[in-house]
């Protein structure tokens, strides 16, 4: 009787498990297993990497973990401020990349001759890794802050530029024919046909670029040194052999990267017209 009544009206927890269990439980189990393996490997001395428990056991790391907002001036800041400094740099470089990438991409996409002229240069430049840009940038731009922003820009501009170009080039001939027959003004063609038609491609580029920009900032800050930022924080902690702090910072980096990607995906869903 009791068992039957339970089956008829499951508790809220049971309801939740039935509904979300298959989605939520496997990833949680996966993460738990991964952490357990890591903990075991460290405890047994298979690796010199500190165990995940060190994030809480190590006193300095615990301070960093529990208080992301402290600011003792100079480079001695909580991880929130370090991350924010990096994010600001990324925002500047990424914004510049979006503006330049989209406008240049449209220009190149519309004009086949410009496309032929510039395409080899783009294909060549986009193969250069962010780290390779650092020495070039530093010799060209003496200001470290500007140089860091430029590295972000030059890393993330290519996917935006190339995807925008493709987006403009693939506009169906039908739409162009409609514009031709109606003799639509260039301004209206741009707003009502070109931009909406290329928008899905532009956003694909923007989404690839945000990941690259975030990857590049870490690399850039490590090499540039002496700036507030999560990248340099890692390098600094490594130099002083605070490996558990490095691990904590890496978790921050992963989480921020994930959030940035989701953010752009969310904007994409809001803006890109449904087809």
């Amino acid at each position, binding site marked *: 009787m009791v068992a039957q009544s339970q089956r008829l009206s499951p508790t809220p927890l049971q309801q939740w498990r039935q509904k979300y269990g298959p989605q939520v439980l496997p990833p949680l189990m996966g993460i738990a297993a991964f952490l357990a393996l890591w903990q075991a490997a460290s405890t047994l001395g298979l690796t010199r990497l500190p165990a995940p428990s060190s994030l809480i056991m190590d006193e300095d790391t615990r301070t960093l973990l529990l208080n992301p907002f402290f600011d003792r001036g100079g480079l001695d800041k909580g991880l929130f401020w370090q991350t924010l400094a990096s994010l600001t740099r990324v925002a500047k470089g990424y914004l510049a990349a979006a503006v330049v990438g989209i406008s240049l991409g449209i220009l190149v996409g519309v004009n086949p001759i410009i496309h032929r002229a510039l395409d080899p240069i783009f294909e060549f430049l986009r193969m250069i890794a962010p780290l390779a840009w650092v020495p070039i940038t530093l010799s060209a731009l003496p200001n470290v802050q500007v140089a860091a922003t430029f590295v972000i820009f030059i890393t993330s501009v290519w996917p935006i530029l190339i995807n925008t170009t493709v987006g403009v080039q693939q506009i*169906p001939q*039908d*739409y162009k*024919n*409609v514009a*031709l*027959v*109606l*003799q*639509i*003004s260039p301004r*209206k063609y741009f707003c*009502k*046909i070109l931009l*909406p038609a290329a928008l899905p491609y532009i956003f694909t580029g923007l989404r690839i670029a945000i990941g690259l920009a975030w990857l590049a900032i870490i690399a850039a800050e490590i090499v540039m040194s002496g700036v507030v930022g999560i990248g340099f924080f890692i390098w600094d902690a490594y130099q002083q052999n605070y490996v558990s702090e490095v691990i904590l910072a890496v978790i921050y980096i992963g989480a921020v990267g994930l959030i940035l990607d989701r953010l752009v995906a969310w904007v994409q869903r809001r803006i890109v*017209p*449904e*087809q």
Partner: protein
Amino acid sequence: MAVLVAVEQVTKQFPLAGGNSYLALQGINLEIQRGEFISFIGHSGCGKSTLLNMIAGLDRPTQGQVWVEGRLVQQPGPDRMVVFQNYSLLPWLTVWENIALAVEEVLAHLPPAQQRQIIQQHIDLVGLTAAKHQLPAHLSGGMRQRVAIARALAIRPQVLLLDEPFGALDALTRGNLQEQLMRICEEHRVTTVMVTHDVDEAVFLSDRIVMLTNGPGAHIGNILTVDIPRPRRRMEVVKHPSYYSLRSEIIYFLNQQKRIKKNALPLGDGSGSAWSGKGEFGTAELTRRQ
């Protein structure tokens, strides 16, 4: 009746990859009267869409000219509005916005209130009042083509150009749309040129049917006048004494073209002269029948 569209000695050659060129159409002459409904019929690849595009101005003839209202066609324009086979509505604009884009651009000289009235009137005309704020993705193929027709009619073109407008639709929808189109064209006296490969559609809708021979070097094989009185109803058209003779004449012509193509194929690749020889044979046959 006045001549509205004149096609004079039009030849169209397409350059091929190997430096050669393909002669699609050769020596086309045609006069279309104001208010007439003309169909181009022929096998696929015979150049009937190319001919339509040259009237639209989307394509230029290699030789010869196309005149509309006494003006040489040199570029596309809203006086020769095209309804494309795949509707070519902008997927990010609603039914209303798609038509408004055309009306606001072409009828910019009219006050906005009148523009809105025209848009509404044409949405009503094709029976899409309830769907006017829908995106094309939420409409059936038949509804999308009705939007395209409404958009074309709303800007009051001199000539309405239809490129296989009902080709992608199922038979029932196609029949309904044909009747709607005919009613609209009859009421508004729209001059219409339609490309089709559907024999019944051509007979049902047209005043004259232009039959094109197979390419390369396709030309007008024959022009049939459909003497069935208007307004037409499908059931009455089917019972009309001319209906079956017209229909069989077109089918005979198309079959004949197919045979010529088949016979010509073994000799086909190579010089263009073998092709044009076959084409002339086709014409001779038809002239005799006429």
